[in-house]
């Protein structure tokens, strides 16, 4: 290359960089001109019309499918409601500022809700007890899960020992401090100006409730802290007033939003709660289970917790939609992006085979009959000794037991006695209680620490009860202080206490302390060494401390106050009026005030008017069940358990206080008496014995056995319920009279082996095989959980009359009578009819499956039906029914305890010629099977519209034809 060319090239290279300089100068100029236009020329415009926008994704909740009865009447539906959500959308210079603002906002929100009668949701598991202390309202694994959530641990096992052992007070102290949510700062506290700027009062004036509210809101925000901009729901189903006020203040309450929501509403809740169940926020276990079926489930879902709601969860649950909205810098929605909207799809509807009206009527009529029995067994005497009666049908309820029950089953809210607005009567009751408490504590202290304690057997009954409670319930039960696994059960002193009752409690406990049977960590600080004397002193102090706050012990004190007449019936009735349990707006109140009724009469009137229901008192009887089926299809028309409960208060945001009350209620509303409670079938089983005898040809229609009141061919003689004896009878007469001796003879003939000798096991095996033929060893088929039946496997003679170890639910007896009514088809009885989509198109149609058939001769069926028909025809109380509707039935009495009334059972079907319904009724501890029979009569009269409804559903206890007398 020559020199010139190289020179030119070099020049060109220099030019190249220069070209770039020019290029970038132009680009810089373009940018400068652009910002000049934006900031200088149009800047004023941008500043004054400052409006920014951003997009947010909102979830559109799907609607849960509805639940209908067989006629399309609504049972469970959704009601539009408003929920308040909050997101941490503010921006702050420091954590301190952030916490101050959030706490202030939480406080203001809680106040607004409170002033409009609403409240924050209560899925926080720290609550205030009646004394204003923080306590956990869950225990066990749920409590540990809650602690893990609060301390931000993914798994329970990640909790430190200190965290897992923290008390509610310690947890709150942590959360309140700067290490938690900085509600009250000890170092560098908020100034009054700072607090006032966010609407907070001086921190020392915050009430525990207000602190709890703020903590709850902060905790909710904390639970989603890993997903910013995700709003959390802090209050559901808020009133229109709250909606208006919150919307108005949206500009000052950063990050709040009112969203449309729906709450689950159950119609006629009490009668249906046991079948339908309820919904609630998904738990961790449910989430892991359900997300395996459908990955859409997340921790915000509301799912079915029990009953049909749970069983058909995936059917009822729709899938959520989504929409994108544009919002400005104040959070106002500018528009919805229609293109990106994913519509939610509603869940499927479930139709039950239940007849809504029949179910409700059955529930009410059952309650009326149970109340009728209860009313008639109450006596004016103050004391009744059950151990004195020979026969359980003679058991009566003294009026004082009613008063005691009013306290024991929390009909009266004793915590209100100490409130500021307690009435004079309530205060008087409280004063009597406090006085009693002091006396009793003094007496107990005398026994525990006094110099001259009495041996147990020398104590008064009252003190015995207290000491038993202290040892059995307090020390060995709830607190676990007296460790029963450490106790040497053959120890002399132990036996002296338990068996001989010859030593005092003081002696026993001192000895227990010296033997290391006592876990001292529960009541004494573990770091100091105590000798057994000191341990004993600490324990005594602990016992008194514990008993002061113990409700159950309180109920025992009230019991003795009532027994010693320190509290009168009149005082209790007045307190019931004061607390609104009884309604003052009726004639009774005035008459009672004027002295026209004694307190005994008044209580009976209130029970008669169902103002005090059997469920409230939880005495015998207080429960019952009835199942109605269509024997031609196996469909369940009604399945009632009494008492029911209001599942509306458990669904949506659960009313924890209500739940706890139900769980502790002695009438056990959560225990389904139709599907869970098992009792012996009593004489209703005699139809199986009949089948066995006829099919095995050990008897025929004309076989006659004579009853003289006792069957004594085997080692264990059996009495007939009719002591005088029924005389000669054939099978029809045996069924009609429900003669025990007749069926004992049938069982006896079944047990005669080839050598002609009696064999209990042979008889039993035949009975078992016929019971199995009726599928009594299998669950009935009903969709809700049902207890497993058991056929008696001992004592052939007793088993033949439905005693022995037989044990069935009402639903299983309902399936049994269904099979009898249709002469042999064993359905898996079912309460689900069909599933449709929202437009009513059938997605799935259910018909009860056939489990099998009872293949026996027509002659046998004729005899069974004829016998049951004779049962009905022989009953005086069924005469009026029988004139209009021919039915067939069988009574049954099941005795379980010598100190409690027998269970009353009745199975029937009608019309006799061509059965349309089959019914099984059971009243637990209902004395006589007649009482169950009367309930079935009510159901038949209702179902076939034989009597005007107003005569059937009276809202009063039905005492007509009620009896305590055993008839089978």
């Amino acid at each position, binding site marked *: 290359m020559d020199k010139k060319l190289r020179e030119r090239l070099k020049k060109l290279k220099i030019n190249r960089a220069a070209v770039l300089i020019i290029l970038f100068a132009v680009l810089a100029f373009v940018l400068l001109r652009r*910002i000049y236009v934006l*900031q*200088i020329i149009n800047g004023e415009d941008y500043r004054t019309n400052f409006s920014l926008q951003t997009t947010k994704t909102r979830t559109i909740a799907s609607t849960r499918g509805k639940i209908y009865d067989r006629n399309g009447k609504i049972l469970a539906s959704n009601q539009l409601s408003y929920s308040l959500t909050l997101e941490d959308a503010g921006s702050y210079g420091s954590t301190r500022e952030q916490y101050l603002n959030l706490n202030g906002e939480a406080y203001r929100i809680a106040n607004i809700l409170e002033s409009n009668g609403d409240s924050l949701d209560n899925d926080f598991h720290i609550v205030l007890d009646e004394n204003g202390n923080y306590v956990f309202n869950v225990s066990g694994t749920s409590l540990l899960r809650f602690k893990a959530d609060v301390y931000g641990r993914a798994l329970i096992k990640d909790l430190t020992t200190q965290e897992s052992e923290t008390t509610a007070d310690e947890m709150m102290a942590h959360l309140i401090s700067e290490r938690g949510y900085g509600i009250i700062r000890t170092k560098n506290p908020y100034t009054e100006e700072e607090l006032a700027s966010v609407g907070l009062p001086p921190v020392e004036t915050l009430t525990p409730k207000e602190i709890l509210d703020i903590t709850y809101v902060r905790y909710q925000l904390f639970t989603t802290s890993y997903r910013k901009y995700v709003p959390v729901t802090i209050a559901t189903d808020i009133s229109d007033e709250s909606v208006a006020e919150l919307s108005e203040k949206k500009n000052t309450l950063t990050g709040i939003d009112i969203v449309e929501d729906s709450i689950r509403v159950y119609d006629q809740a009490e009668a249906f709660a046991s079948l339908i169940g309820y919904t609630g926020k998904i738990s961790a276990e449910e989430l892991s289970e359900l997300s395996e079926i459908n990955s859409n489930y997340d921790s915000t879902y509301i799912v079915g917790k029990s009953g049909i709601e749970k069983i058909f969860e995936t059917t009822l649950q729709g899938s959520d939609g989504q929409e*994108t909205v544009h919002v400005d810098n104040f959070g106002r929605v500018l528009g919805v992006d229609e293109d990106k909207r994913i519509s939610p799809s509603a869940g499927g509807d479930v139709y039950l085979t239940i007849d809504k009206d029949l179910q409700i009527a059955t529930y009410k009529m059952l309650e009326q009959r149970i109340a009728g029995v209860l009313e008639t067994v109450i006596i004016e005497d103050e004391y009744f000794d059950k151990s004195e009666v020979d026969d359980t049908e003679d058991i009566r309820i003294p009026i004082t037991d009613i008063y005691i029950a009013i306290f024991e089953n929390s009909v009266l809210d004793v915590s209100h006695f100490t409130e500021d607005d307690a009435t004079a009567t309530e205060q008087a009751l409280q004063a009597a209680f406090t006085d009693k408490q002091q006396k009793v504590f003094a007496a107990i202290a005398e026994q525990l620490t006094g110099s001259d304690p009495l041996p147990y057997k020398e104590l008064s009954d009252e003190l015995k009860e207290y000491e038993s409670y202290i040892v059995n319930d307090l020390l060995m039960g709830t607190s676990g202080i007296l460790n029963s696994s450490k106790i040497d059960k053959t120890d002399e002193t132990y036996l002296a206490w338990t068996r001989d009752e010859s030593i005092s409690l003081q002696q026993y406990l001192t000895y227990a302390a010296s033997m290391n049977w006592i876990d001292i960590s529960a009541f004494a600080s573990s770091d100091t060494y105590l000798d057994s004397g000191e341990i004993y002193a600490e324990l005594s102090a602990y016992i008194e401390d514990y008993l002061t706050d113990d409700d159950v012990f309180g109920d025992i004190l009230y019991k003795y106050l009532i027994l010693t007449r320190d509290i009168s019936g009149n005082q209790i009735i007045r307190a019931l009026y004061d607390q609104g349990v009884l309604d003052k707006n009726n004639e009774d109140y005035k008459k009672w005030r004027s002295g026209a009724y004694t307190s005994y009469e008044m209580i009976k009137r209130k029970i008669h008017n169902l103002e005090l229901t059997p469920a409230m008192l939880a005495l015998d009887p207080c429960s019952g069940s009835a199942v109605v089926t269509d024997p031609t299809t196996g469909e369940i028309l009604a399945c009632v358990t009494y008492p029911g409960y209001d599942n509306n208060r458990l669904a949506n945001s659960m009313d924890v206080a209500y739940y706890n009350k139900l769980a502790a209620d002695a009438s056990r509303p959560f225990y389904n008496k139709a599907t869970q409670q098992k009792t012996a079938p009593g004489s209703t089983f005699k139809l199986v014995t009949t089948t066995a005898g006829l099919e095995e040809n050990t008897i025929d229609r004309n076989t006659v056995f004579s009853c003289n009141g006792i069957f004594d061919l085997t080692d264990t003689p059996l009495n007939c319920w009719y002591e005088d004896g029924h005389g000669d009878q054939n099978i029809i007469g045996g069924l009609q009279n429900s003669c025990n001796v007749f069926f004992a003879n049938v069982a006896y003939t079944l047990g005669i082996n080839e050598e002609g000798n009696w064999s209990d096991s042979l008889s039993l095996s035949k009975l078992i095989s016929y019971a199995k033929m009726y599928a009594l060893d299998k669950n009935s088929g009903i969709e809700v959980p049902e207890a497993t039946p058991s056929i008696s496997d001992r004592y052939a003679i007793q088993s033949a009359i439905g005693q022995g170890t037989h044990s069935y639910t009402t639903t299983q007896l309902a399936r049994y009578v269904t099979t009898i009514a249709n002469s042999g088809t064993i359905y898996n009885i079912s309460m689900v009819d069909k599933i449709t989509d929202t437009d009513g198109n059938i997605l799935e149609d259910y018909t009860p499956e056939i489990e099998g058939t009872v293949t026996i001769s027509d002659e046998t069926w004729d005899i069974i039906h004829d016998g049951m028909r004779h049962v009905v025809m022989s009953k005086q109380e069924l005469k009026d029914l029988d004139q209009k509707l021919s039915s067939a039935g069988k009574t049954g009495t099941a005795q379980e305890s010598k100190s409690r009334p027998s269970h009353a059972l009745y199975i029937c079907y009608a019309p006799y010629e061509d059965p349309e319904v089959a019914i099984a009724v059971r009243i637990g501890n209902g004395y006589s099977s007649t009482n169950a029979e009367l309930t079935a009569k009510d159901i038949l009269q209702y179902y076939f519209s034989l009597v005007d409804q107003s005569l059937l559903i009276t809202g009063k206890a039905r005492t007509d034809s009620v009896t305590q007398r055993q008839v089978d």
Partner: protein
Amino acid sequence: MLRQYRLRDYNFRLVLWLVALSSLGVLLVGSAAASMQTKQLLGVIGGLTIMVILSLFDFSWILNFYWLIYLVNLALLIAVLVAGKSVGGATRWLNVGFRFQPSELCKILLIFFFAKYFLVHENELNKPGVVIRSIILLALPLFLILSQPDMKNTITITLVFCMLYYIAGLSYKYILGVMVIVIPLFAIFMAIIVQPDQRLIKDYQRTRIMAFLNPDSEQYTDNTSQQKNSVTAIGSGMLTGKGLNNSDVSSANKGNFISEIQTDFIFAVAGEELGFLGSAGIIILLFLIVLECLLMSIRAKDVSGRVICGGMASLVGFQSFINIGVATRILPNTGTPLPFVSYGLTSLISLYIGMGLVLNVGLQGRIRVQAPRRVKMHRQGAAHY
């Protein structure tokens, strides 16, 4: 490897502009995302230190390892594809104790590599063989970046590569030829991607372009609202701005109305809080940096020096233009950091590494060429007297 330099050859002006711009960056990042300020400050200090150290190494000696540089680059990019962290659908990060983004470093390493490559082939630059080989050498890392996917760095690197070749001395004939091909191709490309069912680019990339082309269409508001908010924020800054770290509720920055504000939209913070004066200052500082680099390119001792300086100038220049262009909405939305200002340690350190070499190029000047000239001038002067 280390040489004797003259202090007066050290380009303190460039260092001053860099320190000034980086400081502004630290302040802005602090205002946008307080928690990241310290990290950014440490990044700047670390970057400056690395720059000063590197500026003392003879860049020609460093460039001897150009094949090693190339291979390390490829290895890093492959590592991303194999073991990278996926963020928002794209895999661009390597987790090595901190989040390391190899494509940012790649830009610098490619400049180094081609600086030497063009020096080696100085006399054959316009031979088709070299052109094709160069393009293949570029295509390898480019393909890896594109498959992350990272469209914006692909574009930036392509642009910078063109500049490198141009500075190295690509014949204008080629440039003309390429333009004849590229411009119609670009037209066709655009014509294709406006079709909804196109397969050339990913949907989100198309959406951004479509959003830019149809700013008022509801369909693309998601993508334009970020830019609209940025423009509103910048405009509302007016002459002097709302002040750094202000507590104005109605602030795009404070109200969290622009996502990634500390990186891709840091200029919106500058515009809103520092006003026209501050944002114009940033543009001018960036231009001064570009200018210094280009001036040093002119004085560089050889092709490799020229390419390093010109390359860094182009990189800073284009990236700045794209970033500010997006923030002020004269370009479609792509997420490119603003050099020396945006939060992002990989980008910051990489740029300082580049600047270190640029400074060394300056130190080595065209001593052998300039010295005789001065002598000559002296002689002329002497003659004058």
